């Protein structure tokens, strides 16, 4: 039996909370019957999104809140992540670094690969990232 409920959590924007948020989504996703392949993509994509917020939006300054919510529909799962950190100044780079030995710069590429739709908005002092993942056909 699956329970079709929404997940709503608030995390501190610090590196040790990122895995807690990802774990919470995984546990919730199992509870609502998401396919394992969807759960793996969700976990990786959400970790990359939270990494960006901690290291760029808040730039490691103090313990600030991140709100994360998730819900499922018949066709997809949608995750919304909000923070009050710095607005994203330029569109993110969605491609891999030209230099394969560059150590950073893969986060958005990975996040983009994990979801089917990504929407970013800045409203009323809040960054809001909406991430949608459709279920694989046949599930």
């Amino acid at each position: 039996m699956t329970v079709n409920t929404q997940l709503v959590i608030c995390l501190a924007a610090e590196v040790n909370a990122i895995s807690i948020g990802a774990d919470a989504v995984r546990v919730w996703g199992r509870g609502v019957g998401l396919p394992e392949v969807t759960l793996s993509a969700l976990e990786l994509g959400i970790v990359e999104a939270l990494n960006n917020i901690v290291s760029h939006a808040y730039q490691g300054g103090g313990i600030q809140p991140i709100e994360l919510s998730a819900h499922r529909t018949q066709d997809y799962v949608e995750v919304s992540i909000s923070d009050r950190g710095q607005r994203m100044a330029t569109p993110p780079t969605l491609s891999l670094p030209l230099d394969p030995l560059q150590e950073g710069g893969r986060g958005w590429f990975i996040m983009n690969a994990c979801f089917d739709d990504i929407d970013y908005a800045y409203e009323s002092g809040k960054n809001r990232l909406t991430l949608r993942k459709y279920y694989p056909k046949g599930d």
Partner: protein
Amino acid sequence: MTQVDCWSPTGRLVMANAAQARSEVLELINRGEGQVVIDLGEISFMDSSGLSVLISALKAVQLRQGKIALCSLSANLRALVELTRLHQVFTIYPDRATAIQRLSA
């Protein structure tokens, strides 16, 4: 026969512990002969920060004109490495024994 060093991180290799992991593997590389196997069999999850640790290790080994290989990747980890095309810069073996044998030859 060449000495091969093994680094076997466990659990999650993510932003929270990437700096410590990088320090560990670089110390191992600097102490040894530059032949390194990174056994990822006990890694349950890795993000882009974890990948950056692997790249740091690769660059350190290249500076020493050594060899580096990854082994024992889970299906999810293998998918991440292939997604980011790092399978084109790392040699990957299915298990530690094979990796050590190839690097020590």
